[in-house]
C-alpha cells in the first residue's frame, strides 16, 4: 500500500511537467506483457545472459563474476591434488590465505587450519612455490581499481620484468604439467600488463599455443593473448581468438563478448574469412544478433544456414520473441499493437508486424525442413509467434504436432499459450470464453487477461473493466463503483467465471466464496463512508446499518478515535479530546438528527456549532478525517477537504448565538475554516503538493481573514479572545 501511495504521489508530481518536453525531470519505463517465458523454454540455457530484459544488458554481467571464475578454477585444482579436499579448503588456499602464511609454510614453519596448505607443505612444495609466484603476479595485474574509492596504483614495470625473469626460470624448471601451464598463464598476463607484447606473443607461440591440453587455463591464457593482439592492432586475429574463448570458456564469456567490437563491413568480412570453423562463424552471428538494439532474424538465418542444430539458435529465437512482445504487447491499449489490430483492425506498427510474420515464416520453414534440434522448442515458438501475429489456427495446428514427452517448462509455456488463445478466440463469444477459462486457467496470464478483456465488447460489468483496484478506491472513494461492487458481490452467481475471478482478485479483501458475508460488510462499510463523504447521510445510515455485528466488532475502520462533534482550538493538539471509539453509524445518525433540526428551522447556536464541528473535523484538516476517507496524505489534500460548509455553519452559529463567548468561539472556528479555504482554493483542486509557506498578508488580502477582523474589532475583552492570543499564533500575528 505504501508503495502504491508513493507511486501515486510520484505520478501526481509529474503532472506539472507533462506539457513541456525538454529533457529530464522524470524516469519513465515501458512495460509490456511477457508471456513467452525463457525460463520455461530454455531451462539450461548456457547463453542465458543474452535473454531479452527490461534493462538491456544488465544481465550480461552475470557472465562476469569472480565467483564463477573461482568455481571453475577450484574444480581444476581439485583434479590436481591426489587427495580429496573440500572446495572451501581449496578456495581458501588459493585466494585467501595470507602470503606470509604461505611463505612460512614454504620455510617449514607455522601451522594452519587449512588442510590443503598442511598437505602441500609436506607433500607438494612445488605447488606452494607456484602459488606464491601467482600471488606476486596478482599485485601487478589487477591494478585497475574495482571501486572508484580505491586508490589507483601505477604500474611498477621494473618489478614486473624482474618477476617475468623469475617466473620464466620457474616455468622452465617446473616438471608438473598442471603447474607449468599455470606458470605460463601468469607469465603471459605479466608480460601483457608490463607492455611486453611481442615477448608475450612469442612466449605463447613457442610454449603454450600448441598444448594438447586445452583446458580452462589455456583459454584464460588465450583471452589475454587476444587482448594483446588487439593492442597490437591485429584485430582479426584478436577477435578470432576471443571467439574461441567465447565458445569454450564460459567464465571468460563476458570479456570476450565485449571485446569483439566489429565496426565495419570490411572488419566483419576479414574476420568471417579468417574463421576456420563454422562454429566460429556461428559465434560471430550470435554476438551480432544478440547486441543491444539488434534485429536478429538475418543472423538467425545465417546461423541456421551454417548449422541448423546450433545451440545459439534457441537462445536468439527466445530473445527475439521477447523483444517482439515488448513492442507488440505494450500495457497501454493505444500502444499495444496486438490489441489495436484485434479490436480496431488498426496496424499501429507495420514494421514490427512484418518482422514478426517474417520470423514466424522462418520458424515454420525450419520446422518443415526437419534439420533442427529440439523441434518442440521450435514448434512452441512458432505457435506463440502465430498468436502474436493473430494466426490462431496456425498455433493450434502446431500445438497438435508436439511430441508426447514434453518437459515441465514446455508444458507450462503451452498452458500459457492455450490460455491466451482461448481468451482471444474470435470463434467464441466473450462470455463463453470467460467461463471456459476456468478449465485451463493459468495465473500467469492474469494481467494480460485483465488488459485484454477491458474492451467493452467483452461485457465485463462495471467497475471490473475500469482499470481500478481496491487500493484505488481506498485512496479515493468512488460511490458509483462501490455501489456496483456491492451489487456484483450480492449477485456473483450471475457473473462469468472470469468476472468473478476478477472481482475477487481486484476488489474483495477475502478471495474466497465462503467469505462473501465478510466481503459484503467490507464493501458496505466503504460505501457508507463514501456516502458520508458525499453528504448522503441517510444512505450512509442505511449502508452502515447493514453491517453484521461480528464485522463491527472486529473492523477498526468503522470507528473514529474521538467524538467528531467536539472541537479543538489547535488542530494539531488533541490533548483536550477524550479518546473513545465513536462509530461511523453513530456519527451518521447524530449528524442526521441535527440536520433535521436545522432543516426544520430555528436551530440553536449549539446545533449549528455542532454541525460546523462535524463538517470541519471530517475534512482533511480535522481529527475525524477518517469519517470520510481511508487515506490521509502528508503532501497533498486527500478525502474531503472543502471547509465551505463548516465555515457556513460556524458563521451562522455565531450570528444566532447570544453569548459573546460562544460568538467568539464560533467566529474563531469559522476563521480556521476560512484559512483552510485559502489554501485549498489556492491549489485549485488537490493535484498539487508542497504549498510554500505563505505571507500572512496575502491571506488577509484575499479576504480569508474576515473572521479575524471581526474578532479583533468586536470581541476583545472576552475570555475566549484572551485565550486565543495565547493559543493561536496566526491570530497573534494578525492583531500584532
Amino acid at each position, binding site marked *: 500500500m505504501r508503495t502504491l501511495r508513493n507511486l501515486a504521489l510520484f505520478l501526481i*508530481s509529474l503532472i*506539472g*511537467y507533462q*506539457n*513541456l*518536453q*525538454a*529533457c*529530464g*525531470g*522524470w*524516469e519513465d519505463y515501458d512495460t509490456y506483457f511477457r508471456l513467452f517465458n525463457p525460463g520455461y523454454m530454455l531451462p539450461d540455457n548456457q547463453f542465458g545472459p543474452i535473454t531479452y530484459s527490461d534493462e538491456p544488458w544488465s544481465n*550480461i*554481467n552475470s557472465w*562476469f563474476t569472480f565467483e564463477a571464475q573461482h568455481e571453475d578454477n577450484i574444480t581444476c585444482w581439485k583434479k590436481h591434488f591426489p587427495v580429496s579436499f573440500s572446495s572451501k579448503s581449496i578456495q581458501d588456499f588459493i585466494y585467501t590465505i595470507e602470503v606470509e602464511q604461505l611463505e612460512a609454510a614454504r620455510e617449514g614453519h607455522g601451522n594452519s587450519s587449512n588442510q590443503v596448505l598442511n598437505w602441500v607443505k609436506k607433500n607438494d612444495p612445488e605447488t606452494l612455490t607456484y602459488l606464491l609466484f601467482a600471488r606476486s603476479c596478482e599485485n601487478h595485474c589487477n591494478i585497475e581499481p*574495482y*571501486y*572508484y*574509492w580505491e586508490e589507483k596504483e601505477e604500474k611498477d614495470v621494473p618489478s614486473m620484468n624482474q618477476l617475468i625473469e623469475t617466473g620464466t626460470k620457474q616455468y622452465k624448471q617446473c616438471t608438473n604439467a598442471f603447474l607449468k601451464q599455470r606458470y605460463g598463464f601468469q607469465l603471459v598476463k605479466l608480460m601483457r600488463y608490463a607492455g611486453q607484447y611481442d615477448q608475450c606473443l612469442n612466449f605463447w607461440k613457442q610454449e603454450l599455443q600448441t598444448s594438447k591440453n586445452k583446458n580452462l587455463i589455456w583459454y584464460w591464457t588465450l583471452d589475454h593473448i587476444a587482448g594483446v593482439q588487439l593492442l597490437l592492432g591485429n584485430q582479426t586475429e584478436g577477435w578470432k581468438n576471443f571467439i574461441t574463448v567465447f565458445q569454450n570458456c564460459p567464465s571468460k564469456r*563476458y570479456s570476450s563478448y*565485449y571485446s569483439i567490437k*566489429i*565496426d*565495419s*563491413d570490411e*572488419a*566483419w568480412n576479414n574476420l568471417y574469412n579468417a574463421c576456420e570453423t563454422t562454429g566460429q562463424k556461428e559465434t560471430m552471428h550470435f554476438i*551480432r544478433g544478440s*547486441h543491444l*538494439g*539488434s*534485429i536478429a532474424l*538475418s543472423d538467425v538465418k545465417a546461423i541456421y544456414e551454417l548449422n541448423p542444430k546450433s545451440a545459439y539458435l534457441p537462445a536468439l529465437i527466445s530473445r527475439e520473441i521477447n523483444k517482439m512482445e515488448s*513492442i507488440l504487447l505494450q500495457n497501454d491499449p493505444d500502444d499495444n499493437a496486438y490489441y489495436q489490430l484485434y479490436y480496431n483492425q488498426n496496424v499501429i*506498427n507495420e*514494421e*514490427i508486424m512484418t*518482422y514478426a510474420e517474417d520470423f514466424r515464416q522462418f520458424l515454420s520453414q525450419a520446422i518443415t525442413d526437419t534439420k533442427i534440434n529440439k523441434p518442440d522448442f521450435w514448434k512452441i515458438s512458432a505457435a506463440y509467434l502465430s498468436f502474436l501475429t493473430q494466426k490462431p489456427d496456425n498455433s493450434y495446428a502446431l500445438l497438435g504436432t508436439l511430441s508426447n514427452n514434453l518437459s515441465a517448462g514446455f508444458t507450462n509455456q503451452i498452458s500459457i499459450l492455450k490460455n491466451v488463445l482461448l481468451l482471444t478466440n474470435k470463434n467464441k463469444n466473450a462470455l463463453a470464453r470467460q467461463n471456459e477459462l476456468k478449465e485451463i486457467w493459468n495465473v500467469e496470464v492474469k494481467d494480460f487477461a485483465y488488459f485484454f478483456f477491458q474492451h467493452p465488447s467483452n461485457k465485463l460489468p462495471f467497475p471490473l473493466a475500469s482499470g481500478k483496484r481496491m487500493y484505488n478506491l481506498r485512496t479515493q472513494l468512488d460511490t458509483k463503483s462501490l455501489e456496483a461492487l456491492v451489487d456484483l458481490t450480492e449477485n456473483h452467481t450471475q457473473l462469468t467465471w472470469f468476472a468473478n475471478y476478477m472481482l475477487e482478485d481486484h476488489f474483495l479483501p477475502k478471495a474466497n466464496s465462503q467469505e462473501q458475508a465478510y466481503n459484503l460488510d467490507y464493501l458496505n462499510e466503504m460505501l457508507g463512508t463514501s456516502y458520508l463523504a458525499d453528504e448522503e447521510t441517510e444512505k450512509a445510515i442505511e449502508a452502515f446499518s447493514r453491517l453484521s455485528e461480528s464485522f463491527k466488532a472486529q473492523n477498526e475502520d468503522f470507528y473514529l478515535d474521538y467524538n467528531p462533534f467536539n472541537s479543538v482550538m489547535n488542530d494539531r493538539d488533541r490533548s483536550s479530546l477524550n479518546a473513545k471509539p465513536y462509530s461511523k453509524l453513530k456519527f451518521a445518525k447524530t449528524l442526521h438528527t441535527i440536520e433535521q433540526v436545522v432543516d426544520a428551522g430555528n436551530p440553536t447556536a449549539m446545533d449549528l456549532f455542532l454541525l460546523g464541528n462535524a463538517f470541519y473535523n471530517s475534512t482533511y484538516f480535522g481529527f475525524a478525517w477518517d469519517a470520510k476517507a481511508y487515506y490521509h496524505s502528508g503532501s497533498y489534500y486527500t478525502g474531503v477537504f472543502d471547509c465551505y460548509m463548516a465555515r457556513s455553519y460556524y458563521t451562522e452559529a455565531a450570528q444566532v448565538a447570544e453569548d459573546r463567548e460562544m460568538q467568539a468561539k464560533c467566529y474563531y472556528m469559522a476563521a480556521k475554516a476560512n484559512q483552510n479555504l485559502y489554501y485549498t482554493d489556492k491549489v485549485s483542486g488537490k493535484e498539487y503538493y*508542497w504549498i*510554500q509557506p505563505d505571507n500572512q498578508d496575502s491571506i488577509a488580502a484575499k479576504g480569508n481573514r474576515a473572521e479575524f477582523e471581526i474578532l479583533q474589532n468586536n470581541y476583545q475583552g472576552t475570555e475566549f479572545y484572551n485565550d486565543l492570543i495565547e493559543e493561536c499564533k496566526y491570530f497573534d500575528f494578525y492583531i500584532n
Partner: protein
Amino acid sequence: MIPASMTNNHFMKQLLLCMVTLLALNGCQKVPTETAFYHWEQTVDLQEPELTLLEQVKATNLYLRIFDIDYKDKSKAPAFLSLVNVKQIPPAEYNLIPCIFITNRSFKGVNYPLTDSLARRTASQIRHLQKKNKLSFGDEIQIDCDWTPSTRNYYFAFLKYLRDYLPEFTTLSATIRLHQYKYPKKTGVPPIDKGSLMLYNMGNFEKPDAKNAIYDNAILKQYLSKTQQYPLHLDIAMPVFNWALVFRFGKAVKIIHNPRITDLKENKDFFAHQEDNRYKVLHNGYWQGLYLYKGDILRLDQVKAEDIEKGLELVKKQSNIEPQRIIYYHLFEEITEIYSYENFKKFSTVFN
C-alpha cells in the same frame, strides 16, 4: 604651479561634473557577452578549422570535458570513464574550464559517505588528469548532471563536497536543464556559483514523427519567462551540433554523432532519401561503426543558424536571463561545415 584658471571654482565644478559623468557612463556600459565553446570529444587535438573559428569569434573560454562518471560494465559503483586524451594541448591563450559529466544513475542507491568519497576521488582525478596532460585550468569548474527528484539531495551534496575538495577553483558552475530552470522550487537549485542553461535536447527522442529532437524555438518559448528570476546567474548553452537518430520498429534505438552528411545524401546504394531529413537504410551493413538494418530510418537532426539566432533573440526578449557567456555545444573539426564564421558572428550580435 597650478594655472590661475584652474583655481576658478566654476571650472573646477565643471571638470568634476564631467569626470563623474564619464565614470558613471563607464560604469553603466554593458559588458559584452562572451562567446565560448564546449569541447566534448575524448581526444583533445584542435584542428585548424576549430582554432580559426575560436580566433574569428574571439572565444577565449573553452569548456573541456575531461571525464564522465557512470557505472561501468563490471563496476558496482560509479567509475571514471572516457578520460580525456590530450594529443595536443590547446594554446595557452584559452581559458580551460574542466567539465565532468555525471549520469543521474550515479547518484541512485548511494548515501552521503559514498557521495563524499566520490567527490574526493573526483577532485583527485581532476588533479591527476591536469598533471598528466599538462593542462592549465582556469578558476572555474563545471559539472553536468541531469538530476531528478530521487537523486537531487545526493547530487547537491556532491557539489558541496566537491567545492570543499577543490578550493583552487573559485567558481563552481553546473548545467541547468530547461525544466530545472522553469521549476526551481520543484527541482531545487544546486549549490553553485552560476549555471549554464542548456537550450537544447528539447524534443522527444521516442517520436519518429518529430522534426527535431535537438532544438525547437516553440518549445523554448514555453520555458522562458519574463517574470521569473532564477536564483542563480545563468549563462546559456546553445546547440551547434547534429546527430542522426536511428529509428527501428518505430523507436529511436541509437544516436550517431557527427554523421557523415555527404554519405547520407550520396551513398544511394545504402540510403534512400525520404521526406525532409529522413533516410531509409536499403540493406544491412555497418555505417559509422554501427550495424544498421534494412528498413532502419535515420533522422538527421540539426539546428538551422537562423533558428539559433531567433532563439538567442527569444532569450533576450522573453526572459530575465542576462548571460555573460554564450557557450556553444560543441566544438568539433567539421563544425564549420554546418555553421560558418559569419553565422557565429551574427549570433554574437544578438546580445552585443
